[in-house]
């Protein structure tokens, strides 16, 4: 069983219809993938609906995250509630490089807290660019200890050591393995923070999910850790998500 916790569908900028990720999942032997667009709702009109349609078309294969611009305030909050309650999405994707919202800026903190009311994870793009550095995402994790914060790409090419240290410092943070080219970084992450907080992810379809699977295997994890990284850890996170925002 493999669940890919970070992939994309889109028709608004880069063109990646759901059939593209499904084909790559089949090649790689991946059972399910978390999908999101490359652009933010509501700035990209119809983007949440596009994700919802993809999930509706492949309900056994695809899981939706809502990618939203926190700067849109109440409208952003309403869209997130709709995505969770009506579309059955399971998480929030934030890309500070696109929205220019600091990970710990007030508008970001507000929508993270909203996601937490549903126990929904918040996946940050977390790489080498300003506004997405691990130590910047860490500030959000510190302000919102109730939130599950995923550091997508676990810091990228140059900041993966920071990402692991952030994960060590903040128990509400989780690392995703996508796109960075270092199998040994995955081995170190599992050794230092535990496989329950490391998620297999590809950033497909641009990054090849088969190659990303191979990368995890090259980390030479213990079988139980590899199983956790490939599906158990993300399953545990997604199982906690509710559809009615009943947390205070």
């Amino acid at each position, binding site marked *: 069983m493999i669940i890919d916790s970070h992939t994309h569908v889109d028709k608004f900028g880069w063109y990646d219809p759901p059939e593209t990720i499904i084909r790559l999942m089949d090649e790689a032997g991946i059972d399910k993938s978390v999908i999101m667009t490359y652009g933010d709702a509501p700035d990209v009109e119809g983007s949440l609906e596009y994700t919802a349609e993809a999930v509706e078309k492949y309900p056994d294969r695809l899981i939706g995250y809502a990618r939203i611009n926190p700067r849109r305030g109440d409208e952003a909050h309403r869209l997130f509630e709709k995505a969770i309650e009506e579309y059955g999405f399971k998480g929030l994707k934030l890309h500070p490089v696109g929205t220019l919202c600091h990970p710990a800026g007030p508008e970001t903190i507000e929508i993270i807290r909203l996601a937490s009311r549903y126990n929904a994870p918040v996946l940050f793009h977390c790489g080498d*660019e300003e506004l997405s550095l691990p130590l910047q995402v860490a500030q959000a994790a510190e302000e919102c200890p109730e939130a599950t914060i995923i550091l997508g790409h676990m810091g990228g090419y140059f900041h993966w050591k920071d990402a692991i240290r952030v994960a060590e410092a903040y128990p509400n943070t989780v690392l995703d393995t996508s796109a960075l080219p270092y199998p040994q970084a995955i081995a170190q992450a599992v050794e230092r923070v535990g496989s329950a907080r490391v998620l297999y992810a590809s950033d497909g379809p641009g990054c*090849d999910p088969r190659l990303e699977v191979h990368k995890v295997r090259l980390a030479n994890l213990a079988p139980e850790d590899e199983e956790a990284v490939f599906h158990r850890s993300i399953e545990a996170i997604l199982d906690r998500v509710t559809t009615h925002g009943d947390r205070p």
Partner: protein
Amino acid sequence: MIIDAHVYLGSSLFGYAQSLEEILTSMDRLGIDKAILAPVKPRDYHFAPMNELVAAAVKSNADRLMGLCRVDPWQAEGAVAEMRKGFDELGACGLYLDPWEEGFQANDDIVLPLVEQAGQYGKPVAINAGHARVSHPTQIWDLARRFPDVQFVACNGGQINICGLLLFEARRMIEDCPNIAIQTAGTYREDFLEEIASEVGEERVLFASRSPVYDQEFEMTRVRLAHLSDSQKDKLWGSNALAIFEA
């Protein structure tokens, strides 16, 4: 034939290290026929002994190894002299410039005499590319346009931005400059490599690992799994590197 077009030899100031024995053992394990060695930057910052170390490794394994000469452009006339020695005496198959580790911008004036003279020797220039502050695709592009007769090899596919922000310009750079080839190692997104090979030119992409900075087995898998034809992959695996570095 599989040629790894970029493998580091030596113990680097920056913490990574690889011996000749380790290189050959890994090549045997993974089925790599040849490798092109680049010197690391050593703790004493002196490249001359490292260039000699690479030359000695190549001499003792001439059927399996080729070597690049590495210089620091900040050394000005000394860098030019070291490069000339690399070509005249050490048998270097090209020049390696590392703007990231030596701290210069790839298109800075200090680079120009080196590229000009490498061109006079007919030798290719490999550059650690894709580092936004010093070897941004636009800077490699600018350099390559000023020396259209020099063959450049951009490491990292010319871009290593995990946000995808450099994909557009890296492609434009490659499209605009027929004298730029790219290495596969570390590149962000496999579809970028596939599109360059399929849509821009299958002769423009070289398999390289930049081991031990990147994992050699992982980097081989990047090419092995690419959605390209066998004949395209044959070029990536070796014939493109031979065409550039044995020219």
